[in-house]
């Protein structure tokens, strides 16, 4: 039995693409798990979803220009995500529209632009599927390096500005009476989220990104009392779900992104059942 289990775990590791894929889902699981806690607590789920979808035109332009080369794609995606995040932030802060309306307009418009651009290329449906649902087994060593660097930068920033972002998220009025630069903190948080989304794109894709940002933190919220432990547990859940999902996809032949998200969802439902509120 143990031998069988051992073989089951080791066998896929003979394939380099599988090893790279596993590293990718671990890094992304940790990154999204931690950053996602702020998304969940601040009620920014819709923003995160919109952000990932809005990256599509950037990916499409990068794809059309670079002819499918992966390197520049990441740069295009990152640029688009940051611009979109700042635009949504600016429209929201003017207060002329409700936040969800502002997000909805930009989200749908950008996504449509992305689909339109991709449809001008030759192999429309196949490429779109990769963008939408991720291609974790196609991760190159170079991609992995970039994902790792992004993760270190984002988590480092979070460590440095933890108390300011916590304060901004819990009680913005206090942040303002303590004269923190709330505007700059807010926008930098949006940029941080944009970077995270781009780093996770290849793993789970545009359409399922939201699950990585929201489900592990929500599960961790059920089990923990304080934000640091919520972030730690959420990171563990994200990474574990990534690895489990990837193995599942290897053995039963389902799409890897979907498998990862389904494991996350199952973990959440199980937690909800086990830990019912009195």
């Amino acid at each position, binding site marked *: 039995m143990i031998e069988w289990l051992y073989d089951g775990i080791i066998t896929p590791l003979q394939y380099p693409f599988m090893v790279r894929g596993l590293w990718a889902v671990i890094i992304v699981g940790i990154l999204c798990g931690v950053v996602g806690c702020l998304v969940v*607590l601040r*009620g920014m789920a819709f923003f995160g979803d919109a952000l990932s979808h809005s990256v599509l035109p950037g990916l499409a332009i990068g794809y059309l220009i670079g002819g499918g080369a992966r390197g520049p794609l990441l740069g295009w995606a990152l640029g688009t995500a940051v611009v979109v995040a700042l635009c949504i932030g600016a429209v929201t802060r003017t207060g002329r529209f409700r936040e969800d309306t502002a997000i909805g307009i930009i989200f749908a418009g950008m996504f449509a632009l992305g689909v339109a651009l991709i449809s001008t290329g030759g192999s429309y449906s196949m490429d779109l599927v990769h963008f939408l649902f991720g291609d974790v087994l196609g991760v190159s060593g170079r991609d992995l390096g970039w994902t790792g660097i992004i993760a270190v930068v984002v988590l480092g920033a979070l460590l*440095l*500005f933890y*108390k*300011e972002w*916590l*304060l901004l*998220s*819990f*009680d913005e*009025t*206090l*942040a*303002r*009476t*303590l*004269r*923190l*630069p709330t505007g700059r903190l807010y926008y930098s948080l949006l940029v941080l989220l944009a970077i995270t989304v781009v780093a996770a794109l290849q793993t789970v894709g545009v359409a399922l990104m939201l699950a990585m940002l929201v489900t592990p933190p929500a599960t961790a*919220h059920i089990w*923990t*009392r*304080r*934000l640091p432990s*919520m972030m730690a547990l959420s990171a563990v859940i994200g990474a574990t779900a990534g690895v489990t999902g990837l193995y599942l996809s290897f053995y039963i032949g389902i799409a890897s992104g979907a498998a990862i998200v389904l494991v996350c969802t199952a973990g959440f439902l199980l937690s909800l059942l086990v830990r019912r509120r009195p």
Partner: protein
Amino acid sequence: MSADVTAAAGVSAYGHEARHQPEQPILEVKDLAVTYGPVVALEAVTFTLKAGDQVAVIGPNGAGKSTLFKAIAGVWPATTGTVRVGGSAPGEHICIAYIPQRNEIDWRFPVTVADVVLMGRTGRLGWFRRPGARDQALVRECLEVVHLADLADRRIDALSGGQQQRMFIARALAQEAELMLMDEVLTACDTPSKEEIYRILERLKTRGVTVMVSTHDLDEAAEHYDRVLLLNRRLYGFGASAEVFTAKKLTAAYGGVLRLVQTPHGTLVLNDSCCRRGDAP
């Protein structure tokens, strides 16, 4: 609590270093008006407080009480007129504490009572500095002042209404606030909690902390505060409750919402505040 808690006023590591000029009043509001687009929330409000004053702000729903507090705290700009705290603009100070209404806070947030009180230290710490042993000790002292030390590690969603308010008062103390603006601090409290908060207000008075409390309760306003400020967009009265709570001024401020009934024992005030519409943002 240590003596330096209220000494080093307004020195912030985020770049604000306004100091109080001793000859200036702690709060001076002159001809203040605040408008939200076409809506006039406050106009022509003028009054002055000296250090240690405790004032009840009375007015019907939507009278602009929260707006007044946010303008004084410097988190919402005055459209016209001026607010001066210790002689300078409120936005230069970190000694002004705004104690939020319950519905402004997400109580599911995973923080403990001590975490929230520690947030009050942020303004003194500045970038990249983590709270040290001295900050932790101060948090402990502040929790003791409001009798919450035994609940320091409790999650905030497990607190009663009165405990929530005392936690925010402790946070204001940790902030070393000299001017505390308490929005509806007593609204959600039962009678024992109210008594506890009144005792805390007494303690704040001996420390020279200036306090403004918005409330719906005219009787308690008359009983527990030095002065009352009657507000409904404009200032209808400011002074001792006997001077302000006259039938004429109350009717003017409340309009039809307030019923004044003459009884053999004096004037009975019926305050119809059951149907909350919520104050302006």
